[in-house]
C-alpha cells in the first residue's frame, strides 16, 4: 500500500527520464573526451528508449513504465567527419549537452513536485 503512493505514471516516467539523462551525460562526457581519438564511435542513449517510454506512458500502467530500461548504444546514424573514422561532432555534442542540462532541471522539478505534494497530503502542512 506504500508502493501505491509512488505509482503515479508521470512520477514513474520522470524517474525513468532522469535515469536516461544521467546516462546521456556520461555518453556526452565520453564523446567529448574522445573528440580527437581515431576510430571512436559516438555513443548515446538507445533511441528505442523514447518510443518504449511513450508507449508505456500511453498505457498508464505502472508496471509497464517500470519495465522500461535506459541503456547506452553506439549511435549508428552518426557519420565520420574526417578520414580518421571519428564520428563525434563538437557542435552536435554541445547542443546535446545544453538539452540534457535543461531536461535534468525539468525532471528534478517534476520529481520534487510529486514528493512535496505527497508530504502536503500527509501532513496538511507545506513546510
Amino acid at each position: 500500500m506504500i508502493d501505491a503512493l509512488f505509482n503515479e505514471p508521470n512520477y514513474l516516467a520522470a524517474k525513468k527520464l532522469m535515469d536516461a539523462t544521467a546516462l546521456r551525460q556520461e555518453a556526452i562526457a565520453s564523446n567529448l573526451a574522445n573528440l580527437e581519438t581515431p576510430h571512436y564511435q559516438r555513443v548515446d542513449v538507445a533511441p528505442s528508449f523514447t518510443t518504449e517510454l511513450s508507449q508505456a506512458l500511453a498505457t498508464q500502467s505502472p508496471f509497464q513504465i517500470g519495465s522500461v530500461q535506459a541503456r547506452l548504444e553506439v549511435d549508428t546514424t552518426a557519420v565520420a567527419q574526417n578520414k580518421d573514422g571519428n564520428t563525434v561532432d563538437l557542435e552536435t555534442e554541445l547542443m546535446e549537452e545544453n538539452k540534457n542540462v535543461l531536461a535534468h532541471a525539468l525532471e528534478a522539478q517534476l520529481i520534487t513536485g510529486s514528493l512535496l505534494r505527497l508530504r502536503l497530503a500527509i501532513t496538511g502542512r507545506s513546510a
Partner: protein
Amino acid sequence: MIDMLPGIDCTTSALTAERIRLDVISQNIANANTTRNIDGKPYQRQQVTFETALRRQETGDGGGALTHTVKVAHVENDQRPPVLVYNPAHPDADHAGMVAMPAINLSEEMADLIVASRVFEANLAVVKNSRSMTIQTLSIGKRS
C-alpha cells in the same frame, strides 16, 4: 570514490590529454627555427596521437564498455624531412649555403592549437554542467 559526477573520469582524462597536446604544439611553435638540436640535427616536429582506454568506473546502466577515457598513445617525431632554405649567412649553412630548417608550418600549428583549445574548453563546460546537475540532484525533494 563516490561517483557523484557522471563521466568525470572521461573528462579529466581528456583535459590531461589535451594539455599534453597543447604543450607539444607550443613546443613545436617555439622551436620553429631551431636548426641545431641536442643531437646536432634540426628540430623534428612532434605529434601526439590519442587512443581510448578502459574506464575504471562503470556507466549507470551497468552496460557494456561503450564509454571510454582517452590517453596519449605516444608523442612521436613527425616523419617530414627538414626543409632546405637558402641562407648562406646562417651559422649552420652548409657549403652550398642551404640551411635545414624544421618542417614546421606556423599556420598549421596555430590551427591545431585552436582545435585543441576548443576541445579543452568543451570538456571544461561538461565538468561545469555535471557539477550543476549534481548540485540540483542533491536538492531533489527539498522545499525551495
